[in-house]
């Protein structure tokens, strides 16, 4: 925990500096008859974030906050494995939406999660993995008129558009 607290505070302090620098692309001072410049609000927020991060670092150094005293592991090995698998599969799913679209990525993700992490049988896995995209199609594309990204699978949907739209 202690190391994680330090790393997080440093990363956030650096992000605050970046935010201040980025805000300064717009005027951050007073513009006559216009009030504060466009960059002023985020600039001072960034400054506030920086102060808070340094404050957290000070508390880390003096061991005054609970986390900075904790000797518990930030992630134990089991939690880390789970986090990497779940986070990783989410990332892969979102990435593959660009390629094979929502209707390709979603069933794959559901099948992976339920079969591999949940150890459910193929009938349950298959039922959920196939029914979810069908429900999503009718809800989003037909009822809401929101086109979900389809990537390479776009041509497969032309006949469906002809029927429903």
């Amino acid at each position, binding site marked *: *925990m202690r190391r*994680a607290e330090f790393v*997080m505070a440093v990363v956030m302090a650096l992000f605050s500096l970046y*935010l201040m620098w*980025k*805000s300064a*692309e*717009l005027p951050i001072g*007073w513009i006559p008859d*216009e*009030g*504060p*410049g*466009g*960059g002023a*609000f*985020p600039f001072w*927020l*960034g400054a*506030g*974030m920086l102060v*808070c*991060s340094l*404050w*957290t670092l000070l*508390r880390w150094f003096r061991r005054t*906050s*609970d*986390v900075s005293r904790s000797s518990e592991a*930030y992630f134990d090995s*089991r*939690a880390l494995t*789970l*986090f990497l698998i*779940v*986070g990783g599969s*989410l*990332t892969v*799913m*979102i990435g593959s*939406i660009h390629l094979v679209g*929502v209707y390709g990525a*979603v069933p794959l*993700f*559901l099948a992976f*999660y*339920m079969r591999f*992490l*949940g150890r*459910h049988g193929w009938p*349950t896995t298959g039922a*959920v993995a196939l029914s*979810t995209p069908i429900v*999503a199609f009718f*809800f989003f594309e037909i*009822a*809401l008129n*929101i*086109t979900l*990204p389809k990537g390479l699978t776009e041509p497969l949907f032309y006949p469906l558009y002809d029927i429903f739209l």
Partner: protein
Amino acid sequence: MEVLSLLAGGFAIAFAPLNLALVVFGCAIGLFVGAMPGLGSVNGVAILLPMTFLVPPESAIIFLAALYYGAMYGGAISSIMLGIPGASTAVATTFDGRPLALQGKADVALISAAVASFVGGTISVVLFTLFAPPLAEVALTFGSPEIFALMVLAFATFIGLGGDDIPKTLFSIFIGLAMSAVGLDIISGQPRLIFFGLPGFYHGINFLVLAIGIYGIGEMLWTVEVSRGKMSISQATMSLRRIVDGVIGLKRSIKTMLMGSFLGYFVGILPAAGATPGSLMAYGVAKTISKEPGTFGKGNVDGVVAPEAANNAASTGAMLPMLTLGIPGSPTTAILLGGMVIWGLEPGPLLFVEHSDFVWGLIASLYAANLFAVLINVAFIPAFIWVLRMPFTILAPIIFVLCIVGGYAPTQDMHDVWLMLIFGIVGYLMRKLDYPLAPAVLAIVLGPLAEPALRQSLLISNGSFAIFFERPFAGVIMVIALGLLILPILQKMVRYARRPA
């Protein structure tokens, strides 16, 4: 009596077939969401908000408000049956609800929770009906300085009453406000904070991206980590006779119910407090005023009644500042507020003038939601218990998919989906280090309202911050806010002074 005629008009709207159906549906979904460990009202509202684009805005808000309400009822179910709070708002319900269930009195606990929720909900809606119009009238005179002062007050409550690490709470507020500043500068129209020149940042960061990231993806990652063990479900035998007996037995708890309702309502109005601390406080007070405090924690019905009355009352209390002042009283109402802005229903005092039909329709539907939630709850307790057996490894991936599709729907830009994933993961990592995240969600919703209020105020005063203290309303609000800000320092000093030398 003007209120009564307005309310009657509201009931006409609430009982329109579509709205009534949505109230019933919203309550049912809310009960389900509330009962699921790891999901509370805020998760349900955040994840399902994009789905409500199907119906007109007024109906969508009614649906979400009913969902909010149902979730408060539902939280008790898993607290009692599993011993795991279904939502943070139901934490206090586990203290006595679980022992009751283990003694074979799960039905008594469930009925008490439902009745207490109903009483808490009803009292608070009545209070709401009485307080909202006068408060809105006062708020009509507010200008930019007052609005900004109110926002400072909202954030100050997180520091004074939130009880979290102070620098981390402040950090959360600042980063939320900074995220809201991304996009085009509202006054000059110049592009601002376009990170790495990505075009996706030009339309700003939609509050839903942060809300679903934190309350959808982040929360699920958290639950995946925490819920590793097996859960055991208590058995509940239900029969009409036992239900009636249970309700009659609650006569002794009326005082506790009333206390919980009023306490919950007023705590709920405060932005940082809301339903979770409200219910914990009600539990504490119930224990203090009880004739037999020793039985608390071992299965005292009052220990279930107090927090359940309080959390429902608090959820209505949180709507009061949201609708009348445009300052949300809880993370869930913050998301509701963001939704209303998307739909062009700017919350605040003007809403009562310009969209009076909508306001009263919403209030009337709160009465209806309360009634339906208790009926559905009691009638379908066995069904909800059955649902609790649904393995988390089926629910979790479906919710992840809902989050991703829901995050895509409002802007239809994959950029936002990636951003949501980043917020979810970073939010989860920060939460593990005790960074409170609710302030950030409140801040990203309030940011687009706070910045113009601040800039216009400074323009009026020619750059002097004294304007926030010179005007009567703004001054009083700012002084209260400053009081809250120094409250933790005072507490520390008192503790230090009392420490034996």
